[in-house]
């Protein structure tokens, strides 16, 4: 038996359970008919600079090339790894691809980004962003979240890019029309 196998197997089992218990992500939307009356369509994008290299992320299936933006109606900072409950209503964003997801019609926070790399090894993207959704909004553009990293996968720079024109063009192509309100995600200042 391989040394230390039991704790490793347990660890993998825990992570598998975590993946299974995460609950549903915010559902991707392809028609405004899929957005309920108490919901709003959230439009945005995540970019990683430089991009993931071939073979850098060793997971397959639905977690590939995808960062999970954990969201909440209250701001929360994580001292340890987020648990299954923190993954509810996450946004699963494929890098460099505009996402369209439904969300309840209220302001929310992007708490942290989570990228699964290899087995249970996860990379965390800084969050702490507020999205000011108003009750009158039907579709909201939150911007392109652009994360810059160094060779150690430490984040060196973060910007919310206003790429409204492109997002609006994609929104019109996908949904045929309607108003896309710009409400760029805003970094929340630390309060002591």
């Amino acid at each position, binding site marked *: 038996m391989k*040394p230390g196998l039991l704790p490793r197997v347990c660890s993998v089992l*825990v992570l598998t359970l975590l993946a299974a218990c995460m609950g549903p992500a915010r559902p991707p939307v392809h028609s405004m008919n899929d957005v309920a009356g108490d919901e709003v369509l959230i439009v945005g994008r995540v970019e990683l600079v430089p991009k993931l290299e071939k073979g850098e992320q060793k997971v397959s299936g639905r977690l590939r090339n995808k960062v999970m933006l954990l969201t909440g109606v209250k701001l929360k900072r994580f001292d340890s790894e987020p648990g299954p409950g923190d993954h509810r209503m996450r946004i699963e964003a494929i890098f460099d691809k505009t996402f369209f997801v439904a969300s309840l019609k209220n302001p929310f926070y992007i708490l942290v980004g989570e990228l699964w790399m290899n087995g249970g090894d996860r990379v965390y993207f800084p969050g702490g962003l507020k999205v000011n959704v108003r009750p009158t909004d039907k579709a909201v553009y939150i911007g392109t979240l652009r994360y810059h990293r160094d060779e150690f996968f430490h984040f060196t720079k973060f910007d919310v890019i206003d790429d409204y024109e492109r997002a609006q063009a994609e929104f019109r192509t996908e949904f045929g029309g309607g108003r896309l309100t710009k409400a760029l995600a805003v970094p929340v200042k630390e309060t002591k």
Partner: protein
Amino acid sequence: MKGSGWIIPILMVLFLFNGCAHRQMTELNEANSLVFGYIDMDDSPAKELEAFTLKQVLPKTDKPYWNMRTYEGVFYMENMPNGSYQLNQFGGPGGFFSSASYYWFNFPTQADGFRVTKPGLYYLGSFKYKKAGSFWNPKFDIEPIESPGEREAIEKILQYSKGTGWEGMLLKRYQKLGGKKQ
């Protein structure tokens, strides 16, 4: 079996020689550096530090892993070229009553790293293994410690630099840190 009594002592000598040989530094290449550090493994399930690996992240290479030499908690490797390196994993054998014969501890993707920008000595620091997580989800931390420090680390590996250009560099640094002349 006449004469077979020699085999065991010869094997023991070869084993000991092998143990020392993999610790002996190779000759200094002046374009390269010596990287070293220390980990206190007292709180780890492993009996001692026997393996330590760095991953070369820049420049990119097909063979990015550097297996460091180890001795009494010190990990070191001479002739490392300029580049960026990241902590990758370390480990050691389990004790006699241990549930495992070998333990590995893997650093995460966002582990600390360092850049070797010009030839010289690079001391990464001294650390202590700390258990974290739980049995079901085992994790670890390494915490910086002050003692043993750089001077003590050099003291341990100096013997394996004998006869190479590294010896002079290490001695100079050792004495600068207050070590007595050898």
